[in-house]
């Protein structure tokens, strides 16, 4: 798991411990590159987080990884090309722009709580359709050709994505009870 100033590193670590997964939290490039799988957690603000990663050249390390990589929440958003959150250039693994939800009295922002996965496919298959996972976010990635699961809020958005070895979820599998554990296992068990 990539060590940086993300807010949910401890929670993701606890989830991996509950699943009895061997893991290490590190920002050493060599260790990250040699790992079987890499998790890129994330809670925070896009521009300051991208700056932090760039200063340590961790963005280039992540882009260059060839083993399975899972981006969580802000991690997923930073894998896109651009975020409207403080007009931030991101890693461009997915060629998408991250947008902000438009709030109204029927759609509060942040989008906080348990919402369902629909149109599940690829690595989010296996009984996960219509299941609930936990979200906390104000920005979202629109549905695109790499979307692996959709969730509906002010409009349908990408709850999960995959492009080659890069996996990503907008929700928090580490906080999504049994369903979240299943999503983590789907990622961890893929070759």
């Amino acid at each position, binding site marked *: 798991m990539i060590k940086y100033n993300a807010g949910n590193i401890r929670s993701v670590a606890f989830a991996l411990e509950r699943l009895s997964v061997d893991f290490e939290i590190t920002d050493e490039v060599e260790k990250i590159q040699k790992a079987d799988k890499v998790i890129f957690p994330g809670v925070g*603000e896009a521009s300051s987080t991208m700056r932090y990663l760039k200063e340590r050249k961790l963005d280039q390390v992540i882009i260059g990884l060839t083993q399975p990589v899972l981006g969580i929440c802000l991690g997923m958003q930073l894998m896109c090309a651009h975020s409207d959150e403080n007009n931030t250039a991101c890693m461009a693994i997915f060629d998408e722009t991250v947008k902000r939800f438009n709030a109204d009295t029927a759609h*509060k*922002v942040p989008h*906080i709580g348990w919402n369902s996965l629909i149109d599940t496919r690829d690595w989010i298959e296996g009984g996960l359709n219509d299941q609930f996972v936990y979200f906390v976010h*104000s920005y979202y990635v629109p549905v695109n050709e790499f979307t692996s699961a959709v969730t509906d809020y002010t409009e349908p958005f990408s709850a999960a994505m995959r492009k080659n070895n890069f996996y990503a979820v907008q929700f928090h599998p580490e*906080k999504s009870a049994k369903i979240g554990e299943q999503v983590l296992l789907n990622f961890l068990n893929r070759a």
Partner: protein
Amino acid sequence: MLTKRIIPCLDIKDGRTVKGINFIDLRDAGDPVELAAAYADQGADELVFLDISATNEKRKTFADLVKKIAARINIPFTVGGGINSVEDVAPLLESGADKVSINSAAVKNPELIDALSQAFGSQFIVLAIDAGKQENQWAVRTHGGKLPSDKKLFSWAKEGQERGAGEILFTSMDNDGTKNGFAIDPLQKLNELLTIPIIASGGAGNSFHFAEAFTLGKADAALAASVFHFGEIGIPQLKLFLKNHHVPVRL
């Protein structure tokens, strides 16, 4: 569809749950970790832990407890009680808490909301507001409702949102402990006024009260303590009731 959240609240003193708890056969009902795990298994959507320890020394044990809770449960939880500064929050978040709630300290020093949301993000900050009706106005009270303040509910909630709070936890002091239902009118007004989620608290006595808070009050979540702790309302039964009343819930 985004579902309405059911949130049991646990008061913690010196690392132990305070109110008598007999809703389920636990090895140790005073152990917050055991209780939290039981609620998570029953389908609670989130949990809130309020530290009511009297001294700073005792509060240090709270961070250790937060770590134990985070290690065990796989749903989100909020911690609150005695938070006065950015320095108070960091160890709680590093221990695995998902959000913190602030109350009296924010009334005294509103800039605390700005400081916390800038340091940790809005999604971490729940502004808890205790208010009661006074001469036709909802007046904010502090220190568990014991002390008056110069703030009014609606303007203070709006200011909290503008300063960067991610959610409002509104407790009606007039309804709290009555078991006569949540305060619906102010909930409706808060919903019209704010664009951040609102958690209703105070007055839950039966399942119908929860349905009212969601359908009439338009609350995004509802919090209760004793009705859950004493087994008067079971969370699985409550959620089925809500589903049958067309309230979207996670089952």
